[in-house]
């Protein structure tokens, strides 16, 4: 694997990142010398077998974790903690939304400390809710909404933050299958509308191929990149026709084999 060149154009650059939990004989090597670059506006899926260290990688990208070796560069700047202009959607929406706040206030929450004047904040929140299809739900509370709707609120919150980079940590894993399809298409629509870079961690192979321009397949820990697959399916994607597309079937089969093979190159 060639050394990725850092160009000003890269949205994200992962520079030989390794991470080890603990030390001594019980140390757990989660990530081993990961290196890849993401161009702005790309949609990159990250898949791997369970326990592969996907979450560790995402937390490292988010700046929540400092890798034991290597560094992450976002928008040309080396991250030290959480970089600005980056939003995250968590898997557990019931814990990532604040239950004592209305939907509106939840979406507005990240804007709370900024210097944006109130009327403008309200407009941003309204726009974000519209974008996820929850236009009239601002005054409700999260527990009044179904699981899928709660995750939409989380996405709206990420949108309101106006990020250039969005990280999504298995966001649809806890949602039922039918709702998942709607949410997947929502994410694609958002990418088209706002043009942000998206890194999407999932264990669902079909989903990873359906959504992305690129699929990064991770091995079991210590996780390396097994393969960096370009996904050249026609756009816009469609739940039925894209999934019938022979290229799709071939790609997902390839990814599946890589994963079931324990993350060894085929």
């Amino acid at each position, binding site marked *: 694997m060639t050394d990725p060149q850092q160009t000003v154009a890269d949205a994200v650059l992962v520079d030989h990142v390794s991470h080890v939990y603990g030390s001594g004989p019980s140390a757990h090597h989660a990530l081993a010398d990961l290196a890849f670059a993401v161009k702005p506006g790309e949609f990159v899926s990250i898949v791997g077998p369970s326990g592969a260290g996907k979450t560790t990688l995402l937390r490292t990208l988010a700046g929540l974790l400092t890798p034991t070796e290597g560094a992450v560069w976002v928008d040309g700047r080396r991250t030290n903690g959480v970089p600005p202009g980056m939003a995250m959607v968590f898997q557990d929406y019931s814990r*990532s939304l604040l239950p004592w706040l209305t939907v509106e206030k939840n979406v507005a929450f990240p804007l709370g400390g900024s210097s944006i004047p109130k009327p403008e904040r309200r407009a941003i929140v309204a726009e974000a809710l519209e974008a996820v299809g929850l236009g009239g739900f601002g005054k409700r509370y999260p527990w009044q909404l179904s699981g899928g709707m709660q995750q939409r609120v989380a996405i709206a919150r990420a949108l309101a933050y106006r990020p250039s980079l969005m990280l999504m940590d298995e966001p649809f894993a806890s949602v039922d299958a039918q709702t998942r399809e709607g949410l997947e298409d929502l994410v694609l629509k958002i990418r088209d509308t706002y043009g942000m870079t998206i890194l999407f961690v999932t264990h669902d192979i079909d989903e990873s191929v359906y959504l992305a321009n690129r699929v990064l397949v991770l091995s079991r820990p210590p996780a390396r990149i097994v393969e960096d697959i370009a996904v050249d399916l026609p756009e816009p994607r469609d739940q039925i026709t894209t999934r019938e597309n022979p290229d799709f079937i071939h790609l997902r089969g390839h990814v599946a084999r890589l994963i079931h093979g324990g993350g060894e190159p085929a």
Partner: protein
Amino acid sequence: MAGPSTRVLATRALRASAERPRWVRGLVSVAYFVVPLVVVVGLWQLATMLGRNPFFPQPFAIIGNLWTLLFGSEKAVQDVFVGQFLATVGRMALGFAIGAAWGVVVGTIMGLWRGAREVVSPIVEFLRSIPATATLPLFIILLGGGDDMRVVFIAYGVSWFVLINTAQGVGSIHKTMLDLGRVFRVSPARRLFAIVLPAALPKIFAGLRIASTAALLLAIVSEFMLALNGIGFSLVVAQSRFNLLSMWSWMLALAILGLLINSLLEFIERRLLSWHRLSRQRT
């Protein structure tokens, strides 16, 4: 865990509307509350009218005596209601406020920093095992028999309950909620006041409720010794004069005070923490 699907939500709404209307249910609740009370008081009144026992005065007499004691005359209102009843309330409130504030602060620190918690934990566990009332003689020796001592004593006893519950509440906040604060670059101060404390509030409030009961109890106990006023003091004075009627009256006053405090806290909880109650019904 997946949230309720729209189908489940719809079924719940249907079922709820098929129950008896709200006002009927409310009436039934009130009836369950009032009728047995009336029956018990009535039976007691009857029993004491039939067979007089010095230790169990007639309930109506007790209530009447209390009313006279507290509000019988202008002087009574000044001396008794304000001088005795409110004196206890004042001590209790002050001690509770100080103890609760201390408990929340220390509990939050313990909850947020695992290192601090581990160092301090054995000490806390031991100190709170000492029955708070047993420390009264110690406080008397150290601080004398005055009201400052009482307030400090109450605050000391109260703080443990609040501390433990706060530490538990803060310490068990779900990781995702804390991550959320960091990911969106929320300032540490705002993380504390806008995420950590509200999330821990249900447990903190549970601690506050227990602490309020403790505050009342500690106030009364502190008034049994070397006191000059208060409900506890009045109880002991009545006892020394073998005035059983007044003793019962003061115990009734205590019960009413306890009920009022409990209701007040329950009311506050309903307003502040409705989100917690309602969201838990869903899971």
